[in-house]
């Protein structure tokens, strides 16, 4: 804006620094953004804090014998950890049996075989599948998967069963597996594929012997993230596995059972309040702590694997 006729003011360091008001505003805004980012740490701290307090009360007051008996009946003071732990593992196992092959297969196809036009149609469909709320899958597991799939495989299966819930959870995690695995395979450099083709390898050989081994960390990460998600999935199991009050210890996936997550939800939903005899309320936090730690470890592992892919290529 300087006009040639006006005498220029002598230039100093201060005038180069700019308007102090502008500077102050800049500092304020930076502090605001830093505050938003720091919020995530506050949230983490609050999560740990809110879990740890009551969980500690539970551990210090519960009779240890009640943690390893038979069945999960918090309202009667029976807190058998293995019932809900095995329940979670069974559901996760079934879910992975569904999601791993389907998700991985879809990922390999999308990354190695699909023409761009096909990809452009299929990817959004998978994303829509990823957006379906878990209550919907829970209802689907109960009203469709259980009678139409599970009870056809096994006549003796009950209406509510762990297998149907597991398949429901599996469907939920398919898009997750597919998208992480596809990302990993697409980040494998084209040169590796070209080298393989140059040696006369077929498409299938290239995919199986070159691309998949090169992307294996990412594929492992996809599986771990999916397992973590499956262990933490609540509503599908809550609706379709049918153990609202409590559950006996079971290793039969065709019977009703309880997982860690569903145990928490059904305890909170059971009566009007999250309350009960003795340590019922505290047991909720104890299970939450357990769940938090398990998924945290899994997520840290997955993160490390993802990083390995990124570093290499």
């Amino acid at each position, binding site marked *: 804006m300087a006009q040639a006729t006006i005498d220029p003011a002598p230039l100093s360091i201060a005038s180069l620094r700019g308007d102090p008001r502008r*500077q102050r505003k*800049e500092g304020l805004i930076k502090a605001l*953004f*830093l*505050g938003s*980012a720091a*919020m*995530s740490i506050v*949230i*983490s701290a*609050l*999560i740990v804090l*809110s*879990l740890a*307090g*009551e969980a500690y009360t539970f551990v210090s007051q519960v009779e240890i014998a009640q943690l390893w008996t038979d069945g999960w009946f918090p309202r009667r003071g029976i807190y058998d950890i293995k019932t809900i732990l095995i329940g979670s593992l069974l559901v996760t196992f079934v879910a992975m049996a569904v999601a791993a092959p*389907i998700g991985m*297969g*879809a990922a390999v*196809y*999308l990354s190695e*075989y699909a023409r761009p036009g096909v990809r*452009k149609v*299929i990817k*959004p*469909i998978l*994303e*829509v599948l990823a*957006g*379906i*709320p*878990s*209550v*919907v899958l829970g209802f*689907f597991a109960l*009203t*469709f998967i259980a009678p139409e799939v599970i009870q056809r495989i096994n006549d003796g299966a009950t209406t509510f069963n762990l297998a149907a819930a597991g398949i429901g959870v599996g469907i939920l995690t398919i898009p997750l597996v597919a998208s992480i695995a596809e990302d990993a395979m697409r980040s494998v450099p084209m040169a590796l594929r070209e080298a393989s083709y140059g040696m006369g390898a*077929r*498409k*299938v050989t290239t*995919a*199986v012997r070159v691309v998949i081994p090169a992307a294996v960390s990412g594929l492992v990460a996809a599986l771990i993230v999916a397992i973590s*998600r499956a262990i*933490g*999935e*609540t*509503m599908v199991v809550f*609706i379709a596995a049918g153990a*609202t009050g409590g559950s006996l210890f079971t290793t039969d996936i065709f019977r009703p059972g309880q997982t860690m*997550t569903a145990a928490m*939800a059904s305890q*909170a939903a059971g009566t009007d*309040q999250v309350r009960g005899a003795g340590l019922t309320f505290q047991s*909720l936090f104890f299970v939450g702590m357990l*769940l*938090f730690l398990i*998924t*945290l470890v899994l*997520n840290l592992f997955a*993160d490390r694997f993802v990083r390995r892919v990124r570093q290499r290529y």
Partner: protein
Amino acid sequence: MAATAPLPVTAELVRDRLQGRRLDVTGTLFRLLLLLALALSVIVLGVLLYDVVTGGLSVFTDRAGDFLTGTLGSQPANSGLAQGLKGTFYIGVFVVVLAFPIGIGAAVYLEEYAPRSRFTRFIDVNIRNLAGVPSVVYGILGLAIFVKAAGSLTGGRSLIAAGVTLAILVLPIVIITSAEAIRAVPNGIREAGFGVGATRWEVVRSHVLPYAAPGILTGTVLSLARALGEAAPLILVGAVTGFLGGANSYNPATLDDRFTALPIVIATWAGRPGPEWEANTSAAIVILLVVVLVANTAAIVLRNRYEKKR
């Protein structure tokens, strides 16, 4: 393999090998298997939608208006979604008001301001771990902090507690997706801004954010959809699963009242026996899916369009 007798080399054989005329059995099988996997995931979606829509059809043809305006009841024929819709609406408001600005702010800090320090790395890892924490655990957070500790402010098991809890639940997703969108802004745009003497905030406000807006919008809409479909944390926070008297006016003064939400209504009805409840549940699911999937699809289409443009 070494012991096989050498094949007689003929011109035809060489030509076949070079042109790959042999039927590639393994390759074709592998390809078919992969296609099957892909087809299965698409078919599942189709079956699910078909099942739910046909299941809920009778409710819409018989009593569409009444179903949307009615309140929770003990009889399937006079139960409606009004209270669930109200809860879901306000949860969405909380997410938009709380999670969006804080999340985008955090993303701007991480991408534009943060020094490459240990502290920044720590925040980064922390956010990614928060994104992996199961939603029930956020429910515990809501129960301990917003229902119990801050109960006098939130009204205990209220919409406020639920809204804040879900805003916190999706915050990491908002941050991660926004940060990704901001990272994709070409550096030349920032440098051009700095070159004419703009401060960092001025560059962010007038160049980085507008350029990243479609990506940020996509991420935020996806996270909003996630929050609207979430049920587990609400159960822990104390959403009403049985009967809820009145309380379906949208007056914000009722935010500290007891509440329910669409996914909670679905979870509750899904547990009730009989075909009428099943039809009701299907119909409620159709409503929830319309809300969630319309948001999702819009976000995905929007992103794909902008990706193509650049």
